[in-house]
């Protein structure tokens, strides 16, 4: 959290004009010596500005500082110039961001605006009668208009307060101040309507704000029985990015450890399914929750950096090195972390990141359907991994870390145009002690490698949407006159459709339209499969039904 340099309290003095009454640290802005942060006179018109700028957060740059304040001006007949103006102003180094403080500064101004309107808390604390005048001496109609104004104002601000401002008279203030000077009790400790004022001086207030915020990033200073200056600084984070249904969240922290009683039930419901394998869409299915709500939850977790987003893991995926692969050699911790993270799965079954092997095959409708095309390799790898598991068991809970150079060679051996399946076959010996999914997701999350996405493209769909409707119908007809979806070119002109096939084609027809919608939006296979909840093979068939298609790997 950025510290601020100083804080000062300014009022408009009826005869001396804009004046700093208190400053912390002492003498930092006005002092006898010339050793001040900046020349206050240059900016005082921005500190106590004309009424048009009051009740707004103002920031002004002076030299290498930035002053942030919320000037307030209150009109009331009992003030010397019918108004009282003040500003609590924070001084920041110009390089530092002040955004975390801004809402608090705004609130501070608003609190004291209310308190001043109701109890003249600030004006009385000046301990100077020069800020007040005897309004009873005013002409009758003048008095009324002012009074009306004030009354309506306090009504609109907070109708709960039943204070009638007409009760505030010069004499009352006078007696208040006198009793203060005669007794040692702070002003208004025994206020009317039982309000107990705890604020002793503005100086101690800003002193405490200055110290607490700079030391603890928060403060809690009671003002009276109903109000206090509560400030807690939060860094301003950018809003979470847009997410897609096929995005997969991976937790960066132990999410279950963060849970407390205040957590949203929707969040609790989805938590068990955030495992680095399930897509957002799938989490919503598994948790039986609304997709939009799940997405919002994931965005919240992302906002607080509890998770990162990755891709659906499939053996048909393609990965390739990025220009950041050098980091594996130059960042001395990365290789170590990687060694520990990718270690063969079996021993860490109970850890947050489960392997695909330990999840149930049968209910794996979305993610496993995407993998189905490469099922044979999945099984092969399963056998392999299980083999290594039993081997490690016999050696009594010992694990083997793959050497760093080998890990690097494995990352560099990934390339465009090669599926994980083929890569695995080629390097199965080196991958003996490695969890492939964790190995790849580590690489993606650290930016060492990237996922090469596959986009199906059908020229005719993009070129001319209207014409393609007809041709795709033809395709469909041919398609469903052929029981096995086989796109037989010679059958294309077959026009007869019997009722049974026509009925069957209804869902297919719908799916084809869906696929075309995705094609026009240039969606990749992951997105299409997730949205239609069908696997890659079926999408391939649907695509073939529409027309010859190309796959771009980008």
């Amino acid at each position, binding site marked *: 959290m950025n510290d601020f340099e100083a804080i000062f309290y300014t009022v408009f003095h009826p005869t001396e004009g804009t004046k700093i009454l208190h400053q912390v640290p002492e003498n930092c802005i006005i002092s006898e010596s010339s050793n001040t942060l900046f*020349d206050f006179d*240059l*900016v005082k018109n921005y500190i106590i500005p*004309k009424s048009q*700028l009051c009740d*707004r*957060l*103002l*920031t*002004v*740059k002076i030299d*290498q500082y930035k002053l942030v304040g919320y000037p307030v001006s209150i009109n009331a007949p009992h003030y010397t110039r019918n108004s009282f103006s003040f500003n609590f102003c924070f001084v920041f180094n*110009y*390089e530092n961001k002040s*955004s975390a403080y801004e809402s608090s500064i705004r609130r501070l101004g608003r609190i004291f605006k209310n308190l001043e309107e109701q109890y003249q808390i600030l004006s009385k604390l000046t301990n100077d009668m020069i800020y007040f005048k005897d309004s009873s001496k005013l002409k009758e109609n003048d008095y009324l208009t002012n009074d009306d104004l004030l009354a309506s104002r306090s009504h609109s*601000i*907070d109708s709960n307060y039943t204070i009638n401002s007409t009760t505030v008279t010069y004499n009352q203030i006078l007696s208040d101040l006198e009793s203060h000077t005669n007794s040692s009790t702070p002003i208004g400790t025994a206020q009317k309507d039982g309000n107990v004022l705890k604020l002793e001086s503005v100086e101690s207030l800003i002193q405490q704000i200055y110290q607490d915020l700079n030391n603890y990033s928060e403060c809690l200073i009671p003002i009276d029985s109903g109000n206090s200056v509560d400030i807690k600084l939060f860094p*301003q984070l*950018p*809003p*979470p*990015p*847009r997410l*897609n249904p096929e995005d997969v969240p991976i937790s960066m922290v132990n999410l279950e450890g963060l849970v407390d009683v205040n957590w949203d039930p929707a969040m609790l419901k989805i938590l068990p399914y955030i495992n680095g394998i399930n897509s957002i869409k799938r989490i919503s299915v598994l948790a039986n929750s609304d*997709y939009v709500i799940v997405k919002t939850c994931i965005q919240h977790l992302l906002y607080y950096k509890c998770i990162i987003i990755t*891709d659906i893991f499939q053996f048909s995926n393609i990965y*390739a090195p*990025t*220009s*950041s*692969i050098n980091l594996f*050699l*130059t960042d001395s*911790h990365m*290789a*170590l972390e990687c060694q*520990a993270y990718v270690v063969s799965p079996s021993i860490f079954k109970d850890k947050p990141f489960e392997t695909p092997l330990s999840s149930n095959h049968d209910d794996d409708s979305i993610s496993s359907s995407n993998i189905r095309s490469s099922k044979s390799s999945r099984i092969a790898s399963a056998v392999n991994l299980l083999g290594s598991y039993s081997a490690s068991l016999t050696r009594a809970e*010992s*694990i*083997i*870390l*793959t*050497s*760093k*150079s080998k890990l*690097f*060679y494995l990352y*560099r051996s990934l390339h*465009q*145009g090669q599926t994980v399946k083929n890569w695995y076959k080629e390097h199965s010996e080196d991958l003996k002690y490695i969890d492939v999914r964790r190995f790849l997701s580590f690489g993606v999350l650290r930016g060492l490698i990237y996922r*090469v996405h596959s986009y199906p*493209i059908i*020229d005719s769909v*993009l070129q001319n949407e209207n014409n393609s409707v007809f041709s795709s119908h033809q395709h469909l007809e041919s398609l469903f006159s052929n029981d096995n979806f086989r796109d037989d070119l010679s059958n294309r002109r077959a026009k007869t459709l019997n009722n049974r096939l026509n009925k069957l084609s209804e869902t297919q027809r719908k799916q084809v339209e869906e696929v075309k919608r*995705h094609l*026009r*939006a*240039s969606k990749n296979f992951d997105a299409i499969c997730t949205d239609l909840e069908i696997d890659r093979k079926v999408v391939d068939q649907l695509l073939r039904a529409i027309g010859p298609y*190309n796959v771009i790997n*980008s």
Partner: protein
Amino acid sequence: MSVFLPNPCLLGIVLVITTHTGPQLVFHYPPTPKVYNYQATPFALDNDLIDSADEISDESDYLSDELSDEDSLSANSQRNFETQEISKSSNYVSGQTLLDLLDEQDRRRKEKEKRKRRSNITKKNSTSSGSFRNNSIDSSSLDINNLAKESGQVFGFDPEFLSEIVTPPRQLCNTRFEFTVDDTVFLGLPIHINEEGLWRTKKQKREAKSKHSTNASVNESSKSHDLVYTNEDGYNSEDKNSLNSGHEETNENTMTMFHVVFVMNPPVVEFEYRADEMFHYVASRLSLVLRYEQAKSNFVSNECHNILKIKETNENLPIYQLYNIITEKSPLASALAKCFNSISTSQIANLQINDKLISLQIPLKNSFRNLMPKTTPVLPGSFLSSMNIVGEDEEDIDNEFSLENMGYMALLLLDSPEKIISDLKADSTSPLTTFIQNIHPMISLNRLAALSEMDLSQVISFSRHLIYWRRARSIIPLHSKSVFIVSPMAPMEQIPQNMKIFKADFPSLPSLPLFLALLSNSKPRPYAAIIPSKDHRDIYLDALAWLMRYGYVTQLLTFVWLKVSNGIKLEVEEEMERDGIATKRDKAKFADISVDNTTRAKKEDTEKLKSYLNGKEVKIEEEEEEDIILLDPERATALERRWINRILRVQTPELIQLFQKVVRYFNGKTPIELIISKENISRTELKKILHAISEHIVSVKHW
């Protein structure tokens, strides 16, 4: 949303001057600027209300129920998005569009409320305290916008008041001025005459330093914010006599200060970044040019006089007619208007100021060395290559590496040469014209210099100029034997539009999708592999240049390191023992990271490892490291040099000579594709040496 997307957030430009009668607002543009009640530009990108209609996604189904009242909003936004979609820069509007929409919504809600209020006016006092704030903001924002139209308010203030608040005391002039009201910032470089009544004091030799800092990149500019723009500025005056002409004028309306104020409402989290950008690239530069012209010929004060006169004589005209007259008759007003129109839409502003042409822009971030995380949006069509010169400024020559390589790079024009020449208004016989005509993506700047009979330094400076002004991009000279991949940043969502352009440009070639499929469906291979015959070579290379220009493909480069196997290490160790040199073996290390202390114990590593493994008590066995990868052979230690010599021992003398030439590039930073032209060796030669020591080499392929 990210800082990689352009988002000028510019609401308007105000020109204020000070004369003996005090500050005065001379001109502002647009005629009725929007204020949005001083709110920041919201992030529109993740607004579901907007998204759902705009994007094909299943969310629309989910949302359709909730929307009823907001329906018109999303429909409205969709229309807005569609109209903007054609232009590449569609992203930056979204925030502002949203504000417009919200404004519109506010207005409607307000009207509804008014009606409601009228109906239960008797219950007026029961307004709860909670709703007060919203109501007040609604009404004030509405009032401001309505008032602005009726009473000539500018940014919610009376013109006189506005001119007062953006006129700082003299001590705060000639340095950055920044004043924010809620989230709206008034930013500029107020220019004040000095004690001698001059706009600029003349200095024969201006310090190179000050110039450098004014041109520093945005990151630095935040540091140089406090830079005092003393009245000795960076413009070399050609004619010394003109300098004092301002002095001679004894007009009673003498101007003592002028200030071009840029009014912006950046999103809160990007506030500093956007403000710095605007100040550094636009506000300060424009103000300095104006100061120069004012010093030379009283350009600013004359123009202000002019504008005020036009305003006075045409007082009763409707504001838009008045503005037509002003921008027509006053070059300064028209320049400011043009500046607003271009900068607020992220275009380049080409302004004519007193016969002097200046160009201003906030550079686009559209070339990257590293791939951004998938959740970080970037401009579609951005170019990805580790050879990119990023963060370059017009005259930024800090980038040693890129400067060193610049001569071996080629230029890829982003537009047709004819169009660029005519846009630059270059003479058909000028060296710049010849230069542009000679540019070819296969020709390196070195060769280009020879072809155009120009100095390399001049060619480089022309090239930098073209790159900075969005006319060109620097690439490794195209070659049919090079390998290209479809870029991970390829603008897939623009394929429908771009395939039409591709078809029109290359009617005889396969369609854009097919072409990209050809490039990406196999293991990366030389581009020549997809060229059907020798006759097709030229057109295929043209198509390749097109694909590079649109960001669809990028070159796959090969980077090389030396690796030292245990065998070599052992041999060297024995050799050293024979020579009587003590050695220390360090098994834990695998890359010669310079910060890595050789004494660092392996135990420490294992401890750390255990902590990564959640402290679980397990027996950990680690495979022995086999190889050490040398990160920078140029700075090899004595031991490392022994290893290298050992590797070379079995090679022929001529290969060793070749090796010595190229070994310094085996650092993972210089691609071998560039080594070829830098060291002027042939592809086959390089292949030969790499083959000969293939056991001792580790290579990676990326862009």
